[in-house]
């Protein structure tokens, strides 16, 4: 069973990841590169937290990007594109493994159809729900402290996943009500907001990035769902089989 889950995660992740990585190079990456021009122009000399603190006196506000001059960084061009593709493949393999494992743990029958359904749910939990509080950001955007945002992001994802599960799969009104509360809770608490102010990155560019990023995430989850279902059925000899079989 473990071997099968690992194979399905790996193969489905590679299939969907190759597709997403290609789309990424023509959708979001060009916008990131454009934003970096503004970002660099904004803090030409020091370009790190220390300089930012010195000028704003605010440790939590980080409109600039932290680059340690010592750390390795891919060179723009082929190297950066290749490294980004590898990171994207690792991400889709990770997501495909988690999706397959979650379906198996829930005793779900894995088919292209059911895996697509789980993929849609994953899009809501992992991309759409956190985006309501923390918009997908271009480099150089104003943002609250990283750790606070990471904690809120993870809490929102987990609460939304559990909430959706309770609503979709537990047949009791109290479970469904608890699920709805769980989904709403992170937004009632509220995401860590960016400090007031403006950045050099044009709002129009940022808006296009938000739309592109969410659209790409939706496509990513549909392709992960479809390939998990397809590979699972293929590895089972062409028959839809119960995940626990």
């Amino acid at each position, binding site marked *: 069973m473990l071997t099968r*889950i690992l194979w399905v995660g790996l193969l489905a992740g590679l299939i969907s990841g190759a597709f997403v990585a290609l789309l990424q190079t023509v959708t979001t990456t060009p916008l990131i590169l454009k934003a970096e021009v503004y970002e660099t122009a904004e803090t030409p000399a020091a370009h790190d937290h220390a300089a930012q603190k010195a000028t704003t006196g605010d440790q939590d506000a980080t409109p600039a990007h932290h680059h340690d001059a010592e750390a*390795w960084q891919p060179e723009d061009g082929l190297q950066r594109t290749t490294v*980004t593709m590898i990171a994207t493949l690792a991400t889709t393999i990770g997501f495909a493994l988690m999706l397959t494992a979650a379906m198996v743990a829930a005793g779900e029958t894995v088919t292209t159809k059911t895996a697509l359904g789980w993929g849609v749910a994953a899009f809501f939990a992992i991309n759409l729900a956190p985006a309501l509080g923390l918009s*997908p950001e271009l480099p150089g955007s104003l*943002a609250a402290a990283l750790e606070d945002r990471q904690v809120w*992001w993870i809490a929102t994802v987990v609460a939304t996943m559990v909430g959706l599960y309770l609503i979709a799969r537990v047949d009791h009104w109290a479970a469904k009500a608890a699920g709805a509360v769980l989904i709403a809770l992170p937004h009632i608490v509220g995401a860590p907001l960016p400090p007031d102010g403006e950045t050099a990155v044009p709002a129009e560019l940022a808006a296009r990035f938000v739309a592109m990023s969410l659209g790409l995430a939706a496509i990513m989850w549909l392709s992960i769902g479809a390939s998990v279902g397809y590979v699972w059925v293929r590895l089972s000899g062409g028959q839809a089989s119960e995940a626990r079989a």
Partner: protein
Amino acid sequence: MTTTTTTAKTGIDSRANVRLAALFAFALGGTLIFLTGFAGADVLHNAAHDTRHTMSFPCH
């Protein structure tokens, strides 16, 4: 016939084993996501930078 036999056999093969396998695979996937999306090391951050922004993982 074959399917029935397999199901019956693996039914005994226990839900516990299957859950353990799922848990392991889930943790492995989670580790990959942590490395590409969350790890603080500069090298990992720089390598996954564009992907972190695209996937809207909190970055910087």
